[in-house]
């Protein structure tokens, strides 16, 4: 079953000419045909175009071309519907973009292609990445491969479900407040949010520009490191990308974490944390001690403010970012007698309820007379939150926490209560506000039903190397990442 392999496993088979890229791609397409009717991770995919890319790879290999500088040669990778891929639909799981086809590639996509990847398929998500369950998609739910009555998390729910259900080898998602790490945790895969500025945002349809980052979903930490290495680096098209050297992340995965210090924030192990999750995280912490890491209790005193700060800053930025969807130049349009009527009708019909809620909230917090009380104050608290982390990182190499307070919940369970939904991101949101990196990896399962549990590691700004080294060491000393959902529906 080629579709079940990791990038490194598949690349090894390509190198030995045991299988062709066409076979690998076909295996993914077959799996989609088999399971996606139930999972609904994909909004669309072009099988012929994917196979054509695969054939081009096979031809290259048969002509003696090597994958030497192309670590993703022949690897089928599916993409969240918020990233621009040239000549592919770009809808952000929203009706407002209509039949929009992107005329250009996001920088991250360009880099995947240059590394030889087969970029195919559009993955479901919460509309404009606003949500934690993928229930806010305009095009239907995505189901959690471990239990199809449950949500896969969000907003990158399709990206997580597709990898967990082996419908692709890896996928890309975006993370604004946990949108990679939370679904990765709920679906049992590895989800990485890089440091802000590590990967260019050019071609990522912005939700909250100061928080958004692109990142990979993979079946193990090594693949995560591989994809991070491919996509990282400064980009002249993104002024917020940072000219920090890109290390060899894969080479750092040597399993030796002896003496590294892991911080355990006391603020994260309280409140509505599910006991099974707490037990799994406690066990993981013990495992780290066994592996030679030193555990240090730390404090992140401004944690309680993170969700509030996040929903001010993210919605403020979103209210401006989404203004361009007006029906004038592209996307769906509902005609009106004047521009204002056209805007109202187009946006009224094109945006879903959660997107409207956030645009209204963001518009409110930026309004004259409220700016200082909300936006400006939130920015100040954001700085305090970042300082909490920077202070903690003076004494620890990384921080370990649960990724989510609960395992995957039932579809519809929280969709009527936005606040409960927002609280499912309490462990992931601070990372975006602080601009640091984070990764979620499998660390166990709940018992009944059997649902994945995610362990979150948070690293220093541009500290992905150490963070992934820690993640990899734990992963290789456990078997959680090898478990697969039965997919028997």
């Amino acid at each position: 079953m080629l579709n079940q392999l990791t990038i490194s496993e598949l690349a090894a088979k390509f190198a030995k000419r045991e299988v062709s890229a066409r076979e690998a791609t076909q295996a993914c397409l077959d799996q989609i045909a088999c399971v996606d009717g139930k999972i609904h991770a994909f909004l669309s995919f072009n099988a012929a175009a994917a196979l054509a890319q695969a054939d081009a790879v096979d031809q290259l290999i048969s002509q003696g071309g090597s994958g030497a500088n192309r670590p993703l040669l022949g690897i089928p990778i599916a993409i969240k519907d918020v990233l621009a891929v040239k000549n592919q639909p770009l809808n952000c799981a929203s009706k407002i973009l209509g039949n929009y086809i992107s005329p250009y590639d996001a920088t991250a996509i360009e880099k995947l292609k240059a590394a030889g990847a087969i970029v195919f398929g559009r993955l479901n998500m919460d509309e404009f990445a606003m949500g934690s369950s993928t229930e806010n998609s305009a095009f239907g739910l995505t189901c959690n491969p471990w239990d199809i009555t449950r949500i896969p998390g969000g907003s990158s729910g399709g990206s997580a479900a597709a990898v967990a259900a082996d419908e692709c080898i890896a996928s890309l998602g975006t993370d604004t407040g946990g949108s990679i790490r939370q679904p990765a945790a709920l679906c049992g895969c590895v989800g990485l949010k890089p440091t802000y500025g590590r990967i260019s945002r050019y071609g990522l349809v912005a939700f909250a520009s100061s928080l958004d980052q692109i990142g990979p979903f993979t079946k193990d930490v090594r693949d995560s490191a591989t994809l991070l290495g491919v996509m990282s680096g400064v980009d002249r098209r993104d002024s917020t990308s940072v000219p920090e050297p890109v290390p060899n992340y894969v080479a750092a995965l040597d399993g030796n974490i002896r003496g590294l210090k892991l911080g355990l924030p006391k603020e994260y192990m309280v409140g509505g944390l599910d006991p099974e999750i707490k037990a799994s995280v406690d066990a993981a912490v013990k495992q780290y001690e066994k592996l030679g890491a030193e555990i240090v209790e730390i404090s992140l005193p401004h944690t309680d403010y993170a969700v509030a700060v996040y929903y001010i800053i993210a919605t403020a930025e979103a209210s401006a970012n989404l203004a361009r969807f007006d029906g004038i130049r592209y996307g769906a349009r509902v005609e009106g007698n004047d521009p204002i009527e056209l805007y109202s009708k187009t946006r009224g019909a094109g945006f879903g309820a959660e997107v409207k809620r956030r645009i209204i909230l963001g518009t409110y917090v930026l309004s004259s007379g409220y700016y200082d009380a909300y936006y400006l104050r939130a920015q100040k608290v954001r700085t305090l939150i970042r300082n909490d982390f920077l202070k903690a990182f003076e004494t620890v190499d990384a921080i370990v926490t649960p990724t989510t307070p609960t395992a995957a919940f039932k579809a519809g369970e929280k969709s009527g209560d936005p606040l409960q939904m927002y609280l499912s991101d309490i462990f992931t949101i601070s990372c975006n506000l602080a601009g640091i990196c984070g990764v979620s990896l499998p660390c166990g399962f709940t018992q009944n039903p059997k649902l994945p549990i995610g362990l979150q590691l948070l690293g220093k700004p541009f500290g992905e190397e150490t963070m992934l080294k820690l993640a990899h060491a734990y992963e290789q000393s456990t078997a959680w990442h090898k478990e697969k959902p039965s997919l028997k529906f």
Partner: protein
Amino acid sequence: MEYEAVIGLETHVQLNTKSKMWCGCANQYGSEPNTNVCPVCLGLPGVLPVPNDEALRKTVLTGYLLNCEIPRFAKFDRKSYFYPDMPKNYQLTQYDKPSTANGFVEFEFTGAGSVNGLARVRITRAHLEEDVGKSTHFDRHSGLDFNRAGVPLMEIVSEPDITSADMAYAYLNALTEILHQGGVSDCDMEKGMVRCDVNISVRPIGTKELGAKIEIKNMNSFSGVRRAAEYEIARQIEVVKRGEKLIQSTRRWDDVAGITEQMRTKEDAHDYRYFPDPDLMPLAPTDAWLAEVKTKAIELPLARKQRFMRDYQLPAGDAEVFKSNVALGNYFEGLARQSKNPKAVANWIINNLLAKLAELNAREKSEQEALGLEAADLKLSSFADLKFKPEALLELVNLVEAKTISSSAAQQVFAEMFDSGKAPAVIVQEKGLAQVSDTGAIEKFCDDAIAANPAPVADYKAGKAAALNSLKGQVMKLSKGKANPALVGEILERKLKG
């Protein structure tokens, strides 16, 4: 009660950069609609702005030209409002941290509010933003051209230091002259490169409190600004004199009717919801960068005019010509530095060279048009193409100074050197134009003139001093223009009185 006007101007000027503000598209006027566009300036999903370094430099350069402070921290903000010609539905601008602040423009003005023929208007700030696209309205639909969307636009905000329509007009001309000569903007009004919002209020003379601010939006000619301001000042004074209250509002100038009309009042003013653009890093110019930009700052036109008057003893009129025509001024100064008589050099340039050049250009134009060339393709001669070396003009002035040739002969020499490029000395020799200062020869011409013109002789003797000029002319004629006019005068007088 007497009232006075208080006027502040917001002037929008397109920068003459090669490319647009956030992308590599050409910053070019007059292209086919929607040909200078890309995903970035169309605001397609996923794109990000990248600041144009040339535009940042030209903005800071403007700051130096307008005597501004250059803050070490500036940023771009999003100004949100919906309009079809604005691709992102927010405009990137500098809200509370502009690239330049607290400067002034000084200019010649003689009306109320001036001191010694000069007026000074303080500049609140000159900040950088982006232009929007252009809407064209047809019968049943509208068309949008995004070629202009994202063109770097500088907004120059003045303090309310302007007290009359004429002063506003003088300020705008001085401002655009600085920006144009400073190489920042082409300031072509016809192409919409300069647009202006005029804020006007009135108050009783002697009071300090400002009246309700009324803004006239989107003026695109300076004469329009002057007319609109004249109208609006009179209108506001009339309203307050009637005892009515003015309210803060925005008005539109109807150029045909010559009146302003209300567009909206403060109640329905936009809330632009400014906030810092998270896609752009704040600007923190370094010493080295600022120093480099500063080297590009030109001498201001007014300073140059004053210097020309002071250093070369030019009358204001001449200095004004050299102020407004930089190339001509440079040409003059190159020679004036080497001349003992800069005023004479200025005369030759302004009175003769310009006229000759205009004549030549007219000829070139009709010749080239006869060949079917379009106006834009005409190749007309300029100072750079003159056949004679600049120093030749100096030589000519020296020949006149030394009385080697008469001023009328000098005209002939100049015409010849303009046409052929020959050195003046060569022309003088070839044409035998050297002035005759030989008194014997001149005595003879004078005797002949007196004999042949009894009427002026009688007039002169009867006390009409002016009659001498007529006789002088006759002598010059007889000498073929070569006689030294001063000597001619002396000799004639002696002969007639004697």
